[in-house]
Structures are given as C-alpha cells and as structure tokens.
C-alpha cells in the first residue's frame, strides 16, 4: 500500500479509535506488539532456539571429523563458523511463520488495521534476536571445540561481523520464509532459495571474520568485506520493505 494511503489509514484508525469507547490510551506500535507475541511464544514453547543450538554444536563435531582437524584458524575458521550459523539459521527460518500458518494467525494479523510491513519488521527482528542468542552459545562452543587461536582479541570484530550477518539472515530469511510458508513444499523451498540468495553475505562474512582468527594473532577487520555486507543488507532491506506486502495479500 502506498505511503499516502497508509497515512490515511492511520488517521482513520485514530479518529475511529478516539470515538470508540474502548480506545487505548497509549497504543503500542504494531511491530512491537507482534515482536512481543513471538518472543512470548518462543519462551513459552521453545522450539527454534534449542534446535538451532543443538544443530550448531553437532555441526562442529561433524566438521571436526569431516575435515580431520583438531583446530581451525584463519580462513578455515571463518568459513566453518559462518557456514554453521547459516545452516542453523535455515532451521529458524523454516519455523518463522509456522505459528501464523497453522493457527490461522495470518488472518488475525491481516484483519487488523495495521501496515502489513509491521509483520515483516517484527519477524525479522525476532529472527535477529534468536540468532543473536544462538550465537552467544555457538561462538563459545566454537572457541572451545574447534578454534585454534584465542577468541578474546577476535571478539569485538566478531560482534560487528555477526551483527551485519544477522541482519542479512534476518531480512532475507524473513522474505524467503514468507515466500515459502504458503506453498506446498515449504521446508524444501526455504533451503534451496535462501542458500544461493545468502551466498554473497556468506562470502563477505567469512572473509571478514578470517583475519580475526589468524593463527598468528587477530588482525584488523577488513573494511572492504564489511562494506559488501552492509551493501547487501541495505539492498535487500529496502527490497523487502517494498515487496513484502505482495506476499500477504490475496
């Protein structure tokens, strides 16, 4: 829906609500309400976060055996960490809209007088937070199980890289999840579409993280790769904002 029409809708909703006897004194922003609902649901019945955690740690074990190494550093470390996070994210992406789809919740949101992009913002924010939570444990596990050099000097730089990577995963993940949720083969569609789509972000994040894990001691963050990641986030963020509405209408 276009900007002016949306402002009209908001104005209309406000005047109606003011006239209505039950209007809220301080209305909560719709995206916040949606986000709180998702966080509450995950806390009440945790599914995505435990699965993503277990999956990551198991993947580290597999990498150990698959690569035949006790320790990784440099480019290999960056790659192993980012790829593991990517695959774990796929699990989270698959589950993102499931509560809406199964419990008819899409209708509940679609009937509300809100801008539907609020749903995108809320879901992307939820995914970002879930990934951040998972990463706290995953990075710790990575440092213990596989990482050769000390993780501490790498930490500040790693936070920057992971923040940008999470943004990419959140934006693209939410888009692909919304695309896939109403198809017949949704848990197949998500990986085959999301993985190629996320490849530039994967490349940039792995290359950015590599110097942090240098065997000789953490080096500086390569700004070139951070710029690529930021560009990716920007382009897909804007695109998602423009295009999300079309996925929800009927």
């Amino acid at each position, binding site marked *: 829906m276009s900007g002016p029409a949306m402002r009209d809708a908001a104005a209309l909703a406000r005047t109606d609500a003011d006239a209505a006897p039950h209007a809220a004194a301080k209305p909560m922003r719709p995206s916040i309400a949606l986000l709180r609902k998702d966080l509450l649901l995950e806390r009440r019945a945790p599914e995505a976060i435990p699965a993503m955690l277990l999956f990551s740690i198991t993947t580290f074990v597999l990498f150990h055996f698959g690569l035949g190494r006790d320790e990784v550093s440099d480019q290999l470390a960056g790659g192993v960490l980012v790829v593991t996070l990517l695959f774990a994210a796929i699990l989270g992406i698959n589950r993102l809209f499931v509560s809406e789809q199964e419990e008819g919740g899409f209708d509940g949101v679609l009937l509300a007088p809100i801008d539907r992009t609020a749903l995108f913002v809320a879901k992307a924010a939820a995914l970002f937070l879930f990934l951040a939570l998972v990463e706290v444990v995953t990075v710790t596990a990575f440092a213990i199980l596989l990482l050769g050099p000390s993780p501490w000097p790498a930490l500040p730089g790693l936070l920057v890289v992971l923040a940008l990577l999470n943004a990419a995963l959140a934006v693209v993940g939410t888009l692909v999840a919304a695309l896939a949720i109403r198809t017949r083969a949704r848990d197949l569609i998500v990986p085959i579409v999301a993985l*190629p789509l996320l490849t530039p972000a994967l490349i940039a994040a792995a290359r950015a993280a590599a110097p942090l894990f240098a065997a000789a001691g953490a080096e500086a963050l390569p700004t070139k790769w951070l710029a690529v990641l930021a560009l990716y986030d920007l382009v897909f963020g804007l*695109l998602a904002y423009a295009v999300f509405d079309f996925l929800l209408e009927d």
Partner: protein
Amino acid sequence: MYGKGLRALSLATFAALTATFALVFFYAPLDADQGFIQKIFYVHVPVAIVTLCAYVLGAVFAILHLRTRERRWDLRSYVAIHIALIFNVLGLLTGAIWAKASWGHWWVWDEPTLVSYLIVFLLFATYQPLRFSIEDPERQARYASVFAIMAGAFVPLNFIAVRAATAYVHPRVLATSEGGMPGQMALTFLIAIVAMTLLFALLCSYEIAAKQTRWQLRALRRRLLGGDAVAPLGRSAAPSLGEPAPRGPAARASRSPAEVAS
C-alpha cells in the same frame, strides 16, 4: 493473431547466427596462447551476457506485473527467466569447455565470473520448483514476481561479492592491458552478441506465441463445448492466461479471451 513478427525475427536470427559462425571460423584471428578452442569465447561470453541481462529483464517484467497486475507481464517474466535458464546451462557448459582447454580443468574456482554465474544458476533454478509448489495461479504469479525481483537484485550483488573474493585469473579479452580487442575480434564478438540476443528474443517470442495460442484454443473449446467438456488444468509451474468463461451477466460484458491473452 499471435506471433506476428515471428517470421522476420526467425530470418534475422538465422542470418545473424550464420554470420557469426562464418566470422568465427574464417575471419577472427587465431589466438596465440589458446589456439582454436579460444573461439568458443565467441559463444560463451555473449551467452553469459544475454543470460544476465535476461534475468534482469525478468525482474523488470515482474515489477510491471506487480504494479499493473496484468498477467501478460507475468507470462513475459516467466518466459524470460525460463529461456535465460537454458542459456545459463549453455553458458556453463561452454565455460567448462573453455576452462578445460585453457587451464586443463573442467572447472576453476579462480575466476569470479564463472563462479558467480554458477551461483546465479543455482538461484534461478529454484524459480520453477517454487512456482510449481503454489497451486493458486494468482498467488503463484505474484510470488514468482516477488522472487524474480529479489533474484534480479541479487545478480549484481553476487557478482560484486564473488569478484572481490577471487584472485583474478579470467582472461580479460574485453579490454586487455594493451587496450581493447583487435578489430577483427571485436567485430566478430559484436556480431555474436547480436546473434545471441536475437536468438533469445526469438525463443521467447515462440514460447509466448505457443502459450497464447494454446490458451486461446482452450478458451474457445470451453465456449463452444461448455466448461465441463474441457479437462481441468493440472498443477503447472507455467503461468495460466485463460480466463474462465464467466457465466454471470455483468461479466459477459468483459473482454474476450483473445484480448485477455495478449
């Protein structure tokens, strides 16, 4: 009447392709380093360029579809991406042949254009499975358009990322350090690009005309024999154009299937 310019387009394409092959075999110089097999470059690079432009064109048609909600734009988007995918496979095959001839391996990771070309293929290869998994034709078209737009934006981003990540080895025949291709190569290359573009346009036009004719036929049969005489459509990834013959009086005033399918 569908496929109006098809004959002219076919002739032009045939002429351009013939000219290309004539130039390639008899006019373009033999490359000193790579020998005869270098000539596959005249197929590989134009095909690759046409592929990427076609994907972007598919995204543009998808934007038009979402804005105007006219199904003919979805048809054009689908066909553009569909044919571009075939070109993509051809480009990868010729790229592999060239790699084998030049560097001795069927695949080299060292050159970003080929690698990003592969990733683009992996993405667009999901277009048809995605479409097939959505049964409602309207929703299928809409979701496919959203995908095409995302994937179209992805093409340049992907190229940037891969290029930045790879040690650069791809033979730069478009602009060497000596400054540009020798004239004979440049001319052949140009004709080759024109030929591949015409080939792409021709294949798209054929597919669009074939689909429109099939839908026109189906609509006529429904009208003449009644809706029940025509078997219902199975699931399909291809866009459907046929308007069902509406039975209500208000709708009878609407457009004929011929107008709709154009």
